[in-house]
């Protein structure tokens, strides 16, 4: 059997990679991809804990499904915003979208 800590280490590494993507990429869509990685790391963690500690209870599974639904909603609206900004301002670079700065 795979030890629980392996899953947690993998999830932590995945989360860190995702964070790097969010912080470092210039393209807004790439930032969204980083967020997806982070959400998946969280899902992996949730499911690992569910399987090892609470597998008699459905809360973990329902939690993962809810995260999926929220992730989908977030991607849908986020990408729509990016497309809209691209149409109006012809950019997808996150640092150039700074209208609200001033």
């Amino acid at each position: 059997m795979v030890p629980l800590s392996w899953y947690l280490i993998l999830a932590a590494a995945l989360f860190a990679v995702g964070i790097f993507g969010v912080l470092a990429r210039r393209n807004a869509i790439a930032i969204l991809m980083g967020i997806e990685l982070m959400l998946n790391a969280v899902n992996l963690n949730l499911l690992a804990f569910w399987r090892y500690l609470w597998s008699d209870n459905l809360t973990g599974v329902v939690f993962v499904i809810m995260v999926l639904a929220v992730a989908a909603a977030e991607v849908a609206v986020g990408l729509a915003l990016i497309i809209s900004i691209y149409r109006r301002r012809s950019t997808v670079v996150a640092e150039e979208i700074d209208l609200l700065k001033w």
Partner: protein
Amino acid sequence: MTLAQLIFLAAAAVTLVAAIMVVTAPRLIHAGLWLILSLAGIAVLFILLDNGFLAVVQVAIYIDAIAILIIIAVMLTRAVMSDADRQINRMGLAAAFASLILLAGLLAMVLQVPAASPAPLVEAEVNLDALGRALVDVDGFILPFEVASVLLVAALVGAILVAMAPARGD
């Protein structure tokens, strides 16, 4: 080393390498395809965690829907940012540093988890019947269930509103 451990290591390696490619690939389309591979690796891990249902859901939602949505968005917006452009911003090094620190912190925490709790598995596969009932039971997750549908509709309406607006306005 058991078979499950070997599969875990293979899937974990694929997931991590693909994830690193997602954040470093110079071409955005490739980043999207690597993202799909990474998500597929996660699906294999879900199978290892004895949850075939969520593994299939992972494929159905992430790979079939979200990844394709992302690739379509990349294709729609690719005219302005050529792939030869700089993809990593000025803070690239700082970001790498920050995420390494985060990783170190997380690992320090994770390694304190009591080692290898043996898994008492109640059933061979996740009980879909119980899940289905729990989702609509008043004592279960009825509120998240209905709120999810409202959330999805809100996302649909919002996304259509935002994405369609210029076509009408201009």
